[in-house]
């Protein structure tokens, strides 16, 4: 928990240091970051990419087609699989209640919606490698792992901007009755370059309560981990070609906390996601 406190202090310091920064421009015309209320926005990213899979014996998840769907009402919004209701919105602060899917399921089910059009069978058995056998003095072999159902987490989200820096903090609770765990997602993003092209760096972390970590990475009577704190870094580049077409690329690395990485079913200490492709705005 002390690491969370450190992060929050760092976050607050960043925010306070940038208090004097100018407010961002008001939304006066439809643009990439200004949405028309009451209209659907549908886009498609076509390209090549993959997400590494830290689950033992699982291959990387290919990313080829990434649909992007959003709808903004006066207060309601839908962003792909996340939806929310904005309670307060000003130039620099937005407070919403959101519902977001549990992220970790993507490693267990290729057909999880969060893997977007990526087909593949679900994992039912995990083989222990010699590495994990050594770690836990297990007998090499296979053992069943429980089903990881689709879950949704609900809670408040605070998004703020101070000058060029955008920050976000989500405090979420699982409401679909699978593990009743908590997650805190927090991140900061800043443009490194912003002309016609944009290059944005993001850094943040996800804190998962023990209930979340056990649901995904625990093994009954064998491995009961505690809470985990995963930091991440992301670099995203985008270049608009026209009103409908753009080029988009990103690389994202998430470091997995020991509580996750030490699981017998996990064989990597991090997850890398890369993608490069064209974005087509359909609507």
């Amino acid at each position, binding site marked *: 928990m002390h690491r969370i406190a450190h992060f929050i202090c760092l976050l607050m310091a960043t925010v306070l240091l940038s208090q004097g920064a100018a407010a961002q421009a008001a*939304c*006066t*015309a*439809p643009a*990439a*970051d*200004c*949405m*028309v*209320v*009451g209209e659907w926005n549908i886009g498609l*990213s076509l390209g090549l990419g993959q997400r590494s899979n830290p689950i033992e014996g699982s291959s990387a998840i290919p990313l080829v087609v*990434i649909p*992007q769907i*959003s709808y*903004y009402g*006066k207060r309601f*919004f839908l*962003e*792909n699989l996340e939806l*929310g209701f904005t309670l307060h*919105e000003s130039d620099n602060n*937005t407070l*919403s209640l959101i519902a977001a899917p549990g992220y970790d399921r993507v490693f267990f089910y290729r057909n999880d919606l969060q893997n977007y059009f990526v087909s593949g069978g679900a994992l039912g058995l995990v083989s222990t490698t010699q590495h994990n056998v050594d770690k836990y003095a297990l007998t090499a072999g296979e053992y069943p792992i429980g089903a990881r159902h689709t879950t949704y987490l609900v809670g408040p989200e605070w*998004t703020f*901007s101070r000058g060029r820096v*955008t*920050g*976000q903090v*989500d405090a979420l609770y699982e409401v679909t009755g699978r593990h009743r765990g908590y997650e805190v*997602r*927090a*991140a*900061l*993003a800043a443009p490194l370059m912003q002309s016609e092209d944009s290059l944005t760096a*993001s850094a*943040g972390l*996800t804190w998962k309560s023990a209930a979340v970590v056990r649901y995904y990475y625990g093994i009954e009577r064998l491995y009961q981990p505690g809470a985990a704190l995963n930091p991440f870094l*992301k670099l995203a580049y985008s270049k608009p070609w026209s009103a409908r077409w753009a080029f988009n690329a*990103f690389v*994202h690395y998430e470091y997995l906390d020991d509580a996750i990485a030490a699981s017998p079913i996990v064989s990597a200490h991090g997850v890398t*996601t890369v993608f490069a492709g064209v974005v087509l705005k359909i609507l």
Partner: protein
Amino acid sequence: MASPRCLQALFSRFSDRIGSCCCLIAALCAFAGAAVAAPAANSDSIELELRPRVCTLSARDDHCDTVVEAQWRSPQNESLCLVIVGRPEIKRCWENFSAGLYSVKLVFSEDLVVELRDPQLHNVLVSEAIQVIKEALQLRRKRRQPWSIFN
């Protein structure tokens, strides 16, 4: 010293001249008044009707593209021209007509003002406008998601 009879004669001649002068001025005034009042009297009786009366634009449209129909009528014959403000290429004239109809396909994004003017185009006799009403576009900032992989 002049006799009273002489003074009377002198006054009589002077007052005749003043009287003539006043008559002349009054006649001139009446003529000028009539001349000034004439177009006003005509324009009051000329009716101009435009179709459509308004053009409503949806949030996504930025211009009206429609056939504009202008119809005028008057109790007496008129000589006049129809013009559209800001469109010097559009001009339609009638000579000694009591009614007229003109239609033209136009693209416009601001209020369209149609005028009937005298043949010399100096005086505006009647003016009407087609109002452009734009549906207000409601915008809100896109949710920023530094946490998300795909944003």
